[in-house]
């Protein structure tokens, strides 16, 4: 008996996959970006279907929001339009690329069916409310994972400075033009 949750999953999965395929097939990067945003939203939906409310929210804000804006801005900056050679050429390498990706996929899927089912055969425990999950998440984050959390903070600072640095790099031929 398929329930609503199952149909929801299939819908979201279709959304994620279709938009995912579109991301890598769209000739125009700006469309890729838009499709990527849709994928992110789909993934956020998947998160919700897995009761990860808080993470879904963060996904929407950080990914579909901030990161995508970054992408779009850069694309606008470059003023890129339709590309003539969007895909790399080469029959052999193309075949190998598809084949290797296919093998990886096949192996993982095969493995999933061989082992995950047995490990997680019992149905998942239902968690009650969204708030509980978020609370538990916060608890874990600030106790068990406090070190990682702090380091991530430092990392963001470093990256901020680094990104600024990158944008200010001058030298070589440019330096001489100054």
């Amino acid at each position, binding site marked *: *008996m*398929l329930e609503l*949750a*199952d149909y929801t*999953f299939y819908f979201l*999965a279709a959304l*994620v*996959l279709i938009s*995912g*395929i579109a*991301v*890598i097939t769209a000739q125009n*990067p700006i469309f*890729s*970006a838009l499709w*990527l945003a849709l994928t*992110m939203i789909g993934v956020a939906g998947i*998160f919700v279907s*897995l*009761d*990860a409310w*808080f*993470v879904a929210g*963060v996904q929407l804000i*950080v*990914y579909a929001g*901030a*990161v995508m804006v*970054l*992408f779009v801005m*850069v*694309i606008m*900056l*470059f003023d890129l339009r339709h*590309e003539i*050679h969007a895909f*790399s050429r080469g029959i052999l390498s*193309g075949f190998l690329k598809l084949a290797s990706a*296919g093998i*990886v*996929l096949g192996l*993982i899927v095969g493995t*999933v*069916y061989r082992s*995950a089912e047995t490990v*997680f055969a019992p149905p998942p425990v239902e968690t009650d409310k969204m708030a509980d*999950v978020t609370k*538990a*998440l916060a608890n*874990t984050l600030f106790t068990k*994972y406090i070190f990682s*959390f702090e380091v991530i903070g430092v*990392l*963001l600072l470093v*990256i*901020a400075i*680094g*990104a600024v640095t*990158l944008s200010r*790099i001058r030298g070589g031929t440019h330096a001489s033009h100054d």
Partner: protein
Amino acid sequence: MPAMTEALLKVSLNHYLVLSAILFTLGMLGVLLRKNVIVILMSIELMLNAVNITFIAFSRYSGNIDGQVMVFFVMTIAAAEAAVGLALAVLIFKRFKEVNIRYFEHLRG
């Protein structure tokens, strides 16, 4: 037979894992096949998203909240990566006036 099909169609952990595997593969293919560096960056984001689905799915089905924390970290790092990547992209665009990776083959041999 229908029962079998139904058992297969009934959403379980495996479905999420397969979904994430496919998405991951799509991301891989994007990195492998697309020539525009921006799209390659996007493909990497796809891969990270796929990983996130795996984390959340495992977390949910094992009742272990740690997975969600990890997703949290991954997202942050993904954002950092995107920042650095785009900054680099801008940098090379300034130098090469191109973002097609086939122009970046000076280092070889």
